């Protein structure tokens, strides 16, 4: 029972939690928190069991498949499964949501609604990672938006209304275009199944001459071109990639700390995951290109590199601590796109690893900002100084987290960035070597703004205003500890991720490049 429907249990346990919370009177705060902890903790336990106990890491294909008819008239199915691409992200999601609950304990406004929405958000995110039916995928993808809107809009900072609707509008603009592309793929192939679509694309029957949608031209673009870009932009807005990133600083800055953690840690990964799961292998290319992905690899790499460098430079210019961290996400997620575009096993692995590692390190950084914001109620980087004297534990953990983010050897960020860049260097097209060199500028700038931030916050003379500050308490350490542990352990033993991903990634790359 549990084993057969493990993915469904992981996905829908938070929904049960949400229903329970709705029945708890709103004054019973402790009970609400307990339910939230249990209903985010159980999926974490199950996901850990899934990772180490159930999942067969030697297999490349989908595992733990559950499949049932849902809406017969349109052929939509309840089809969930997991493979090496989604497994780590499912684990990351359950972990970050579990961390987000205690990180939210100092929120006092309308707690009942808050935790209910948080649990609904988790259902949406996990649903996207397990769905293998494009209709189901899309439904979960959209379900996520609603709780996010309210979580930013109700519990956010001063400009929360603006940030919330901006986030909602940007993501919806991307996803409605995705919907058009999905419907077109369905009309052409007669299936919503993502593996089914991938198989059709591989065999060359999808959007082939004479198939139903072969002459559906939009804006003068042939179907495989516009479908690719519609899907890609839908995911790119989520990642976000320059020039679709402007919602990100607003949303991240205005959102309460735990929601920033989820935004940066998981929601951005959905974009990258969506590309490898539901975009690159589904859209066939024109002419000698087997996939639209091959055709557009260079433009993708260019926007990746632009994101890396631009994001880093903008982060360097920020004086708001949280805004700086937000822009660092733009820069870090640029590697993911560069790694994808390289179309090599190492590059793809690096990108997948980078998604996971950015999930932990950016979460730590947002928690770090939250700790100081809770005490000082401002985030001006120039307004601090000398905090290492009063908050030594905070200093130590922050430094560790920042070093992981800037790619210090021995920590997780280094492995993924190095793999990505090596992978990109190996790419067939020599122009990628230029891209790698340009990306190195990003690494230097990233180191610069992170170290400069540490200097401005922790070193120098202690501002007497802050001399009474208490160091991090047990709850705050508890939130950061598991994430920092992952940053360290995956820096030393990255195979804890790579071994699980490798078969699926090899399959993906061999499909995309056509080399067995």
């Amino acid at each position, binding site marked *: 029972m549990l084993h057969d429907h493990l993915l469904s249990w992981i996905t829908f346990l938070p929904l049960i939690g949400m229903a329970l919370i709705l029945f708890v009177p709103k004054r019973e705060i402790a009970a609400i928190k307990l339910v939230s902890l249990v209903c985010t903790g159980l999926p974490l336990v199950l996901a850990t069991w899934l990772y180490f106990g159930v999942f067969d890491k030697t297999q490349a294909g989908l595992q733990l498949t559950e499949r049932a008819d849902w*809406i*017969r*008239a*349109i052929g939509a199915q309840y089809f969930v499964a997991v493979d090496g691409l989604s497994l780590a992200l499912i684990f990351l999601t359950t972990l970050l949501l579990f961390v987000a609950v205690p990180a939210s304990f100092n929120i006092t406004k*309308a707690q009942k609604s808050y935790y209910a929405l948080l649990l609904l958000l988790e259902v949406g995110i996990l649903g996207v990672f397990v769905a293998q039916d494009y209709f189901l995928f*899309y*439904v979960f993808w*959209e*379900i996520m*938006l*609603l709780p996010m*809107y*309210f979580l930013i*809009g*109700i519990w956010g900072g001063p400009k*929360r*209304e603006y940030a*919330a*609707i901006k986030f*909602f*509008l940007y993501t*919806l*603009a991307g996803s*409605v*275009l995705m*919907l*058009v592309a999905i*419907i*077109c793929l*369905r*009309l052409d192939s007669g299936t919503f199944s993502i593996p089914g679509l991938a198989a059709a694309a591989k065999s060359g029957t999808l959007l082939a001459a004479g198939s*139903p*949608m072969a*002459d*559906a*031209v*939009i*804006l003068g673009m042939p179907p495989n071109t516009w479908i690719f870009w519609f899907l890609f932009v839908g995911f790119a807005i989520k990642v976000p990639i320059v020039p679709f990133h402007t919602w990100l600083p607003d949303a991240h800055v205005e959102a309460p700390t735990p929601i920033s953690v989820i935004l940066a840690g998981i929601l951005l990964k959905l974009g990258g995951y969506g590309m490898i799961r539901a975009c690159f292998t589904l859209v066939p290319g024109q002419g000698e290109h087997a996939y639209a992905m091959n055709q557009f690899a260079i433009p993708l790499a260019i926007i990746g590199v632009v994101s890396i460098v631009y994001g880093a430079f903008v982060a360097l210019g920020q004086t708001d601590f949280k805004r700086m961290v937000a822009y660092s996400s733009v820069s870090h997620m640029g590697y993911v796109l560069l790694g994808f575009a390289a179309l090599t096993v190492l590059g793809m692995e690096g990108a997948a690893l980078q998604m996971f590692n950015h999930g932990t390190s950016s979460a730590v950084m947002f928690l770090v900002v939250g700790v100081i914001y809770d005490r000082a109620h401002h985030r001006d980087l120039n307004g601090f100084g000398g905090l290492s004297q009063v908050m030594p534990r905070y200093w130590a953990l922050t430094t560790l987290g920042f070093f992981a983010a800037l790619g210090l050897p021995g920590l997780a960020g280094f492995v993924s960035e190095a793999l990505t860049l090596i992978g990109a260097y190996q790419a067939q097209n020599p122009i990628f070597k230029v891209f790698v060199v340009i990306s190195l500028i990003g690494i230097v700038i990233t180191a610069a703004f992170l170290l400069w931030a540490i200097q401005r916050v922790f070193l120098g003379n202690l501002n007497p205003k802050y001399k009474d500050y208490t160091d991090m308490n047990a709850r705050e350490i508890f939130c950061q500890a598991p994430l920092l542990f992952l940053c360290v352990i995956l820096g030393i033993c990255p195979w804890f991720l790579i071994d699980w991903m490798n078969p699926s990634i090899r399959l993906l790359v061999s499909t995309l490049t056509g080399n067995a």
Partner: protein
Amino acid sequence: MESYLEGMRLIAPELVLCGVTLVVLVWDMVRRGRDARELGGVTLAGLAATAWLLLGQWSALGETGAHAGTVLGMVTVDRFGTFFKLFTVGALAVVAFFVMVDRRERRRGIGEYYFLLLGAAIGIFFMVSTNNLLLLMLGLELLSLASYSLAGFHKGEKRSAEAALKYVVFGGLSAGVMLYGISLLFGLTGTIDLVEMGGARSGLLAAQLHASPIPVAVAMVLILAGFAYKVSVVPFHFWTPDVYEGAPTPVTTFLAVASKAAGFAVLLRFVGALFLVDGVEATIRAYGLGEVGVLLAVLSAVTMTLGNLAAIRQASLKRLLAYSSIAHAGYVLMGLAAMTAGGYSAAIFYLAAYYFMNLGAFGFLLYFEGVTGSETIDALKGQGWKHPLVSWTMVIFLISLTGLPPTVGFFGKFLLFREALDANLGWLVVVAALNSVVSLFYYFRVAKALFLATTDGEAKNRQPVLGGVLAALGACTVLFFLFNGALQDWSEQAPASLGISPPPGE
């Protein structure tokens, strides 16, 4: 005599409805001055009886298409008509309930209210179940006359009077235009029966088209203008916001849901009978009037875009919903523009979806008119925390109106997009998709007011019964997304009974 009795059996639902209408009128006179809510009860009972008869008729009609029968050559009983009659009965029941719980409505002596609503429904019943242009026009006028009086029901209120007058003027004009178009068609073909006019055997319209295309085109444009007015398609939409705003909220609900759906029903039947019925399509296209689809697509794009853009700046929730209903007319037109059986089914499904979410949204408006006495969005500030059930239900209606899962509105939009893409109207789908994004912005101004602001003070004027009905509508909005097999089957069988079948191989 036999056939006469047979005919009476077929129009039994209409007869029952007429009976109830008269009973309501007499009851009101006999028990003058009593709390009119008991009349609401009578109305609901009558509607229940009608619905029961209609359901019996639906299953008796069987799954195969074809006309089940005509009464005196005028009334056509088919599944298409029955679907919209059931739809009307459902909408009217909710509207009657709204009248009963409307806090701003006086309690005594409003028997005419129910009488006029039922009269409007009789008009709808006849207009959706006829192929005869004369009866269609009569039904339409009956509906219109009742609606004019209903819009001005608050006689003392300036806004209400203005609404009624505007409605009469626009309505009269468009009816005249339409009638002129019909007379042209009659002159050209010598018949007022749509089936004969477009039918595969006689092909009168096709023949006329061949001989003199311009008069046919003129007649078409005039008649379509009349329909466009009824379903408030740009550029015949100007009356909509003013009338919707001025009319009492239950009447607005009726106009936005039942009356609009009926307008679409006749439009679907008209376009279907002349251009889409099996065998006609090829002839018509050969003569070049297949471009009706392109015309409808352009109207659809313009309507949804203008409706959505105009809604952005509205301060009154009632006006906002009025413009949103214009935009939704544009979405439904996508299904017609596809000019396929699938497009028809999608349009019908979308109307059903529209039913749930718009009844819900107007019910929410009614609820908060009772709470705050105002219909502006500003008045809703922070109310979400005081009336959580109704307000979160409203959020469901809002995401359904925007077209986001997991709601029936999303599924309706999905079907429309699919059929339009299938008919190679990719550009229209992209326009509609971007329109959804625009609409999100203004729909969520309501959510923003409800939850993103806070106010002090205690919750007052709770209306648990209305709240419960709204929650049930909200539950339907979600459940009909998760389990929509039956609704889909119905929406597919309805156009089949018009003789429009999907291409083989579907």
